[in-house]
């Protein structure tokens, strides 16, 4: 029964993946629709492509082809027809039949070392994010102290704490009261205070909870930004995930051009804050931009960038005194300083925010030999998302009012956040696997499994004859169970994972060898064949159990400490141990019973 389920779930791996194309609108705000579906269908219908299968799934359109040639032909046709409107990505779509999909069947996912592609590990600089937040807090407290007439003589930001010095005891006491008034967030206190009443000094640092909040926000924000950028790349099935407390994993199967991928993923800023040009600004120092909301309205901005997106640490929506929506923006200390300088003496002028995107323009051109080819050029598109009048000198935190209704306000906040990284990131690990190496690895892996399996099967047959046959059946069903189980839980197969399977093949017969040598011994003491079989199985059980549990412990530790490929090894090893115990004990027993169960044996050869 279990074997049947195993076979069932390993079945999807037998269906070859079909070449397919994934089409999405380049504008990520648009979801693929019936209109796109019809247009693609028309284009492909008019071409000489035998058979294709088109479906609207989630936000994109998937087209399956029968051959790689058709897939490439389809791709170039569609690219020509849509140019930059639609992103066309090549893909391999599993051809799992509907009924298998319905019961949750899907083929094994291949790790990057088998499929080819890029793996990046980025680290978010939390210290930087904390230092920036401290700077905002410093400015906030300075403002509050001034408002409440609390006089401080010195205030500094050391990067991990801010320190205020006071002249009088009264000011010192009042300052503590002011700080404590604001010192509560849903997750607990925000600031840890280091009080020094003798010198009238207050040290303020973030509490552990507050740092955790900052970290979660920064990582979450960067994660979102990265997802947007990865979508720009048009990769099918990308992985963008948080790993540990402050790292983000990005995996792009099939992408070969790491430099391009890194440029898009690693770009820091795609927001620019610039002052609006005045009529007297010389033409050399200003530029004209379109608004993102409408192409026909334009405005002139100065060429000087006051603040760029990597200074924006937060953008959220809120309501002003009159109950109208507003967008709150927080900058880091550097950004705050630049903005303060730029707005001083410029109250009443307007501040524009530009949204910057990397885009590709495709054109059909004739090459030297007269063939029509698609030529792609990279360019940068900048559009205005906000132009608002400066009403006061601005610093690290300010707001934009008059942003329309609530929805428009949250869209603007979203754009601001999408164009910013909450904290800088750096690449700490990168692995690129070329497609040829991936294919080679699969071939080598499969070949070693087959050769290893054949060697073991032959040996068992030679040494144990009929019992060996039973053990071999168990071994093969074990392989089927491993594949089925891994497909079922959606585990990823890696090269070390294949090694784990090979190792399992070698070790799985151990349980059977133990049982068989037990049976031999029982026979040696003069026990009847049927009795010997029974005793052999039951006496060997404890040994097998203990031996396997300890290996399982090692595998679990391996899973806990390992990353990527090594985790793959740990998974196949653990699954292999569990399934091999099952097949070696129950499976072999069933086969042995079938072979010998009904007969009254006089002699038994083991």
């Amino acid at each position, binding site marked *: 029964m279990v074997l049947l389920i195993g076979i069932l779930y390993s079945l999807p791996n037998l269906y070859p993946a079909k070449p397919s194309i994934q089409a999405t609108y380049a504008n990520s705000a648009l979801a693929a629709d019936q209109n796109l579906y019809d247009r693609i269908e028309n284009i492909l219908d008019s071409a000489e492509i035998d058979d294709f299968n088109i479906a609207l799934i989630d936000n994109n359109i998937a087209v399956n082809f029968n051959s790689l040639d058709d897939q490439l032909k389809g791709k170039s046709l569609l690219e020509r027809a849509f140019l930059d409107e639609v992103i066309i990505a090549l893909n391999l779509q599993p051809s799992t039949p509907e009924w298998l999909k319905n019961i949750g069947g899907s083929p094994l996912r291949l790790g990057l070392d088998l499929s080819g592609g890029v793996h990046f*590990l980025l*680290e978010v600089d939390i210290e930087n994010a904390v230092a920036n937040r401290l700077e905002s807090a410093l400015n906030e407290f300075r403002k509050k102290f001034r408002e409440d007439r609390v006089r401080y003589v010195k205030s500094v930001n050391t990067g991990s704490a801010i320190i205020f010095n006071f002249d009088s005891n009264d000011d010192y006491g009042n300052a503590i009261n002011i700080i404590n008034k604001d010192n509560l967030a849903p997750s607990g206190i925000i600031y840890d205070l280091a009080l020094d009443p003798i010198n009238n000094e207050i040290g303020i640092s973030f509490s552990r909870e507050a740092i955790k909040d900052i970290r979660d926000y920064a990582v979450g924000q960067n994660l979102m930004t990265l997802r947007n950028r990865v979508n720009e790349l048009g990769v099918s099935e990308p992985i963008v995930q948080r790993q540990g407390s402050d790292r983000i994993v990005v995996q792009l199967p099939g992408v*070969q051009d*790491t*430099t391009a991928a*890194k440029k898009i993923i690693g770009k820091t800023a795609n927001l620019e804050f610039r002052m609006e040009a005045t009529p007297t600004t010389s033409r050399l120092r200003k530029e004209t931009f379109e608004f993102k909301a409408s192409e026909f309205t334009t405005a002139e901005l100065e060429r000087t960038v006051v603040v760029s997106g990597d200074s924006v640490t937060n953008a959220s929506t809120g309501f002003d005194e009159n109950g109208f929506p507003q967008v709150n923006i927080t900058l880091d200390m550097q950004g705050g300083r630049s903005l303060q300088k730029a707005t001083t003496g410029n109250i009443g002028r307007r501040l524009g925010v530009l949204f910057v995107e990397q885009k590709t323009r495709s054109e059909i051109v004739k090459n030297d030999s007269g063939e029509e080819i698609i030529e792609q050029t990279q360019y940068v598109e900048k559009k205005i998302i906000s132009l608002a009048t400066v009403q006061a000198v601005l610093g690290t935190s300010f707001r934009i009012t008059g942003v329309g209704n609530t929805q428009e306000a949250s869209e603007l906040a979203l754009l601001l956040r999408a164009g910013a990284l909450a904290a800088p990131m*750096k*690449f*700490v*690990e*990168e*692995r*690129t696997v*070329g497609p*040829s*190496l991936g294919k080679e*690895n699969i071939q*080598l*892996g499969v070949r*070693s499994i087959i*050769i*290893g399996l054949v*060697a*073991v099967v032959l*040996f068992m047959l030679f040494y144990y004859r009929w019992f060996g046959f039973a053990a071999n059946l168990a071994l093969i069903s074990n392989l089927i169970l491993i594949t089925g189980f891994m497909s079922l839980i959606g585990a990823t197969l890696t*090269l*070390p994972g294949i*090694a784990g399977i*090979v*190792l399992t*093949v070698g*070790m799985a*017969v*151990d349980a059977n*060898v*133990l049982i068989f040598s037990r049976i031999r*011994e029982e026979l040696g003491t003069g026990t009847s064949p049927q009795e010997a079989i029974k005793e052999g199985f039951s006496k060997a*059980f*404890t*040994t097998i*159990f*203990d*031996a*396997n*549990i*300890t*290996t*399982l*412990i*090692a*595998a679990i*530790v*391996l899973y806990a*400490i*390992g*990353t990527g*490929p*090594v985790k793959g090894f*740990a998974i196949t*090893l653990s699954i292999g141990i569990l399934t091999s115990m099952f097949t070696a004990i129950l499976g072999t027993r069933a086969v042995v019973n079938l072979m010998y169960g009904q007969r009254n044996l006089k002699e038994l050869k083991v």
Partner: protein
Amino acid sequence: MNFKIPFMKYRKIAAIASLILFAVSILSIAFRGLSLGLDFSGGTLVELTFKETIPLESLRVDLSANNYEDFQVVNFGSDTDVLIKIADVEGNSSIGDEVFDLVQSNYPETELKRIEFVGPQIGSELRDQGGFGMLVALGMILLYVAFRFQYKFAVGAVVALAHDVVIILGLFSIFTWDFDLTVLAALLAVIGYSLNDTIVVSDRIRENFRSQRGINPDEVVDLSINQMLSRTLITSLTTLLVLFALFILGGELIKGFSLALIIGVLIGTYSSIYVVANMLLMFGINQEDMAIPDPDEGPLDDMP
């Protein structure tokens, strides 16, 4: 097959051999260190396939001319496959792309097989995690064996495992084979495998102490090892069969992995015969240690 080999007669010799191997390994690890692979050392690695065999020296000259220091250029698997390793302390992640561009400008038909970059902090983290994981695994196994058998067995088993692991590490150090994450994985698998053997032998020793009365501990151990010998050999043999398949056919990327496992299986087989038994006899194991506290032997033993 029935063996009657007086293993315990040679136990002193085996103990001395083990101690020497162990000491040499420790010394080599201490003084020569391990040749850490990219995963642990950090740095950049580029694997390229050239159209035809090219002199490695010219690549080295090209790299030196472009201000790269501390790099290695070696063939990897075949004459046309070249592996370039660049040590890097700065954590600059774009070196791999730069090197590929540089090589491609001189040899346009070069194909990129892989680029790996591991930042320095990741390298040291993986080192710490690896060592820590090894200790955790050994500790948990010690507890489990102590719980299921008896502390003398547990100490014996863990000493045997440490013996295996140290000797494999020693060999990797002596022959300056690359020690990377996959080799670490292999080491943990060796722990599992060797333990498997150890437990099977210990299990039999325990059983024989209970059933065979009136013979001395040396004989009980010898009898148990002989009874289990054909099983030990067969399992090692089948495992070695697949490991050699993997070593020969599995490609360059898992050569180190299969090598570590092959050595591990050989040493593990030896240690389950000699190291554990030696330890048990040294501790003066006897019939009382095997006393059955409860006639039912606990719940686990009763499972079918």
